[in-house]
């Protein structure tokens, strides 16, 4: 058992390419992810929106100003463009979503075109509801008079209020809109946010990506390490060890111990970088982190060894490795593999361990 682990350690130490892949690549990928998804853009996805104000009314210009102030989107304004130009921008991938204000926002429902047209790219389907959410929030927060005015128009049509009452309320809304800096009414305080997993509290999403990258690399590295089983079977080492008492069992157990150790070191390096570069606090939850790390590494090692024992060639291992990690990532959610195990999502534990207690 110790002999098998020794073989794995020495083989890894003497293969510089494999060594750097195992221990230098994970922190590098982590830094890239952290930079792209966290440092560069903050904690929210910043969509690129092409905005076209066709009607240029007072309310449409207020909406343009409100959207320009939205931190969650990046606007590209086209003043002299047409709707076709906006469609071309979306089609060409210049912007994620196009938003055209094609009729006055105070127009009643059913009278002409809906005020806002969203031009979408089928390849960016998720961007549409996000942008619609931003637009609705901008209207609710910055133009509550317009939002309420549209509702009142419908209420008036239904006969629930008179024209005089409607005129009175319209005037009240306008006054309110002018006094927005005061304690005016609106929908701004409708939502508050809370992270159940506490991601974003200690070091923000960096901790999440540290755990996610660690989980991915633990699986990849475990598959690569377990692939030596196939090489050893092909080279005749299995045949040789079948003569030895419990030779194959010792070999498998030694590999398991090595893979768990390798996984621990990989996770430690990634979280070490997270601590050094992004102030992710590992020390406060070190015991939870350690337990989770052992569990995830052990499960990655056992799954990898089991899969590799079924493969008859390295090619099969590579295919299975890519497919397996992608599948587990898809099951667990983007970039967070979820190992199949009753009632727990162990790969997530690396992520959660960082967040426990904060």
């Amino acid at each position, binding site marked *: 058992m110790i002999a098998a682990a020794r073989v794995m350690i020495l083989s890894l130490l*003497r293969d510089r390419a494999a060594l750097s892949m195992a221990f230098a690549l994970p922190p590098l990928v982590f830094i890239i992810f952290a930079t792209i998804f966290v440092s560069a853009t903050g904690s929210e996805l910043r969509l690129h929106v092409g905005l076209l104000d066709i009607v240029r009314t007072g309310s449409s210009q207020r909406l343009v100003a409100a959207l320009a102030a939205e931190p969650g989107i990046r606007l590209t304004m086209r003043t002299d463009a047409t709707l076709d130009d906006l469609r071309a921008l979306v089609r060409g991938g210049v912007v994620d979503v196009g938003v055209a204000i094609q009729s006055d926002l105070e127009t009643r429902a059913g009278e002409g075109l809906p005020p806002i047209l969203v031009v979408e790219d089928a390849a960016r389907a998720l961007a549409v509801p996000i942008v619609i959410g931003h637009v609705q929030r901008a209207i609710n927060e910055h133009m509550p008079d317009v939002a309420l005015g549209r509702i009142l128009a419908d209420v008036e049509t239904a006969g629930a209020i008179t024209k005089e009452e409607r005129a009175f309320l319209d005037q009240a809304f306008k006054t309110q809109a002018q006094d927005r800096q005061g304690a005016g009414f609106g929908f701004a305080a409708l939502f508050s946010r809370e992270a159940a997993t506490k991601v974003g509290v200690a070091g923000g999403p960096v901790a999440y990506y540290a755990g996610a990258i660690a989980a991915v690399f633990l699986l990849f590295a475990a598959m690569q390490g377990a692939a030596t089983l196939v090489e050893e079977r092909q080279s005749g080492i299995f045949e040789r060890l079948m003569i030895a008492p419990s030779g194959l069992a010792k070999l498998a157990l030694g590999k398991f111990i090595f893979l768990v150790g390798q996984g621990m070191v990989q996770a430690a390096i990634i979280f070490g970088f997270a601590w050094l570069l992004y102030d992710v606090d590992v020390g406060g939850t070190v015991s939870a982190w350690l337990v989770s790390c052992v569990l995830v590494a052990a499960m990655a090692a056992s799954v990898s060894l089991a899969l590799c024992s079924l493969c008859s060639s390295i090619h099969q291992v590579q295919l299975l490795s890519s497919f397996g990690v992608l599948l587990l990532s898809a099951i667990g959610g983007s970039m967070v593999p979820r190992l199949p195990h009753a009632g727990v999502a162990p790969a997530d534990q690396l992520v959660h361990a960082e967040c426990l207690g904060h």
Partner: protein
Amino acid sequence: MTTVRSSPAMDTRLSRTKQTELCVAKVDGAVLTIGGRPVLNGATLSLLQGEIYVLLGPNGSGKTSLVRALCGQLPLVRGRVGVGVALEDPRQNRRVLRLIGHVPQSIAIFPRLTVRENLEVFSRFLNVDTSCGAINRLLDVALLDSVADSIVVTLSGGLQRRVNLAVALIGEPQLLLLDEPTVGIDLEARSAIHHVLSDLRDRGRTILMITHDFDQAERLGDRIGFMSAGRIILEGRPADVLRQTFGDKKQIEVVLTDGVDDRIDAEFRSVGLEPVDGRFLWRGLADETLGTSKILQMLQSSQVPLRGVRIREPGLDVLFGQVTGCCTP
């Protein structure tokens, strides 16, 4: 199976070795199928202490399966396998596997470890004590002292083969099973392995070696066995089986620079020559005196486009072709 007995006068090798009649491994009427295909079909073999037994046979004749059956790796349908003085079945008593050292056909060692590390690691797998200079003794026996601390992957093919052999010597097994131990290496490296094997035989080890190298079999083997279709069809001492099969016959080989017409073709066949490689190489067996002179006269009189004629003692390659029906180079 035909067993050829040696005549005392011819048995020069016997006096050189420590061979006794003590049987250390036996396969008796082994029948084995893999995936419904018969692999061993009544194979019978006895290995005596201190001998090198060379197993020859075409690919797929069951040689490797016979070795694996001896290691207890394959369950027999019929027959029995026994290893050790008590001839115990390795599938029933795994402890007898300690008596076996197995050298697979491929180089079954860890490539990124040094020679010494490989020996240490395999010793631990085999639960063999490595104290008291056991590793150094192995390095010495396998002539690997000078490269003991070299990483295996940096060594030549011949040295890697010797490491492969040295690993099988861990625990000083009585019986060594070698599956083509010299395949793909040069003459010098092969000679070094021959030296190691001869030395082991002289120390009383029993060696069963599979090879396709007839020269190696003839020079190294105390006994040879020809295997075909899962059975050993002929065995004995190399000189005995050759003499018994060919007597005083010589092999005559005719190499032409051009093809021959139908008349000469018929003449060649009438004196026992057969085309081997297209129509340019012809071979045949002929009586030492009458036969060879008749062929030489025919070649002279028919004025064939002759490049050369070679007359030699028929070797194991010729015997192999005869007993297995396979062509030899």
